[in-house]
């Protein structure tokens, strides 16, 4: 290793933020569902995977029609992908979780693991186990730094990921804090029974939560498809595990927490890879999670747990 370089450090921050944005988008789905019904939705990673497949298909389809404007591709792909994954989110909740609403805590968890296995194999049957790949839609970027030395590279795609992530997060935050439905969501996460007594259709709110979470997972899937260009039926599991870690790191149930958790996790992985050995990046990520939970038992931005007698 040849010493510390400031420009490399900047580049690693860019790398970490990009990765973190994607984690954050997926993490929101976990955190929202947990916040409202206190359930770890293990199938969420699979929803993201479906979003990535649909995104890839939409982009391929559009290119067959000869559409080549980035904005048009992005908007149409996002719309299609959100429609499909939203439907999946809704259907899964309706069929596999709603009948279990009042069962013991572990029951929906096992059901979620079942759904996750089911969806993984279902996509494998439909699309094959092979990796599906696609050439980048948006290439190029800015370079900074000395022409003959290490140059920091910021690609348009990375900027796009950051912008889209921030836009969707801002939209979601506004929705939750300002809109009528958002208020209902918050009420449900405070006390579901009470919300129900006050005339909120909690079933509808819960379904909405699943659809919103799935929609953000679709955004992540589309961005990942455009950025990395590789999709297979198994990507959901790994990404889901990481995003879930991010959600808990930030404080599960808290939406800003999920964003923060995603970014912290992305940065931690990048730095571990840069300044330690790459094979230890996941060890660092999980060790960080454990340490944070030991210091702050409810995550970085989590509400303190109130003991109810």
């Amino acid at each position, binding site marked *: 290793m040849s010493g510390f370089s400031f420009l490399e450090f900047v580049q690693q921050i860019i790398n970490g933020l990009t990765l973190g944005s994607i984690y954050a988008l997926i993490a929101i789905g976990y955190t929202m569902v947990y916040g409202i019904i206190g359930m770890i939705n293990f199938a969420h990673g699979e929803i993201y995977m479906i979003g990535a497949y649909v995104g890839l298909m939409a982009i391929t389809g559009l290119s067959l029609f000869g559409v080549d404007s980035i904005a048009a591709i992005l908007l149409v792909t996002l719309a299609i992908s959100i429609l499909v994954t939203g439907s999946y989110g809704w259907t899964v909740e309706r069929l596999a979780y709603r009948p279990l609403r009042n069962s013991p805590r572990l029951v929906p968890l096992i*059901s979620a693991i079942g759904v996750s*296995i089911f969806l993984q*194999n279902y996509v494998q049957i439909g699309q094959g186990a092979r990796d599906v790949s696609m050439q980048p839609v948006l290439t190029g970027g800015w370079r900074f730094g000395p022409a003959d030395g290490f140059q920091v590279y910021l690609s348009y795609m990375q900027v796009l990921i950051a912008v889209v992530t921030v836009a969707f997060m801002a939209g979601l935050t506004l929705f939750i804090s300002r809109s009528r439905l958002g208020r209902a969501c918050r009420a449900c996460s405070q006390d579901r029974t009470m919300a129900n007594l006050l005339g909120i259709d909690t079933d509808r709110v819960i379904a909405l939560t699943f659809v919103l979470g799935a929609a953000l997972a679709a955004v992540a899937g589309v961005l990942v498809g455009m950025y990395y260009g590789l999709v297979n039926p198994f990507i959901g599991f790994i990404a889901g595990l990481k995003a879930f*870690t991010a959600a808990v790191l930030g404080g599960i149930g808290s939406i800003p927490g999920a964003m923060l958790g995603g970014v912290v996790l992305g940065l931690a992985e990048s730095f571990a890879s840069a300044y330690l050995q790459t094979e230890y990046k996941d060890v660092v990520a999980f060790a960080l999670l454990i340490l944070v*939970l030991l210091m702050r038992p409810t995550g970085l931005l989590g509400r303190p747990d109130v003991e109810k007698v």
Partner: protein
Amino acid sequence: MPRTLIDALLAAVLTAVLLIPIFGLRIQVDGVNVALDRTPTPVVIAVVAVFLLRLFKRPLQRLWASWKVPGSWRANSATAALRQTAQHPRARQALWLLLLAVAVIWPFTVSRGAVDVMTLALIYVMLGLGLNIVVGFAGLLVLGYAAFYAVGAYAYAYLAQQFGLSFWLCLPIAGGLAALTGFLLGLPVLRLRGDYLAIVTLGFGEITRLLLNNLNFLTGGPDGIGGIPRPSLFGLEFGRRAKDGGATFHEFFGLDYSGDHAVIFMYLLGLALVLATLFVIDRLLRMPLGRAWEALREDEIACRSLGLNPTVIKLSALTLSAAFAGFAGAFFAARQGHINPESFTFIESAMVLAIVVLGGMGSQLGVVLAAIAITVLPELAREFNEYRMLAFGLVMVLMMMWRPQGLIPASRPPLTLPERAEAAR
């Protein structure tokens, strides 16, 4: 009528949206070219089917109800009867004995492959029973159980390979090391509540797997550790030829060599370990410690106010639970002969958890049956290849709807008051 029609149309549209991207279109990658294949038939069939089903939902339901009544009544009464017998302590005992008898006679009557699959099932029974202590009795959700399993497996593999220690010596060491791991993990993390504990154990499980993969000098990295000896029966080996001058089982008893002996022996060994596990846990449950676990699960605050120390109780549950995973791990290493980190992934932890929940949390008999079902069912369906796991996932979901309390719900070991109390009245 229009309402049903709208409903049916919506359902059909939803089905189309769900199915088109997965089954209606298929991305074909050929070299650098990407194309979309269209295969509309399955989607059209599904959409039409859903539409019709939704449209004629009412009449179909009525038809189903009128047709089903006698059958369902019989089925319900049968399950109810089964449930009642299962609840009855005598009947439970009889069921246990029956299971045991079948388990002992079984390996001599069936093929080698079947015995081997059952050996695998026994490993899961052990794991399920072990995890049941911490999840079912103490009510602590642990998502990284495979870590303890791995510690046990690697302990035996490493000691056998490096120092040539025998299985029988390594078994307690493996259990002890796993228990120690559980204890050390438990010390700091058990003060976390509920799902946070689950996540920390998940993280711990992943770290363990990654370390097994990364610490090449100790664990062999991704190659794992090979050449793990099979256990011997009082010094008698089960190979074709004995290593360094020992005697082999078939020579000692004057039998022809058959690979089946080793397989059956492994099965019986596994069965013995399972019985020991069952016995120990059953005894523990009748002790104050076991009662304390369950009390803690029901109400931690009440426990504390009764003077029970929750940390000690939780720690004891996790440590014991880890120890059983360690035994199972050592046995797994012996069955496998070669282990690598692939066998200790998160899915493994999730499967064991599924066994506990499917069986009925806190129910020993249920866990045993669920473990057997979960290992044997996918084996039976091996020909169906990819549909096998699809069905497996589906069954997990359906089981949770059908019997959220598990196959055989838990019942406490009964404590009757001594006779004297009756007399004093």
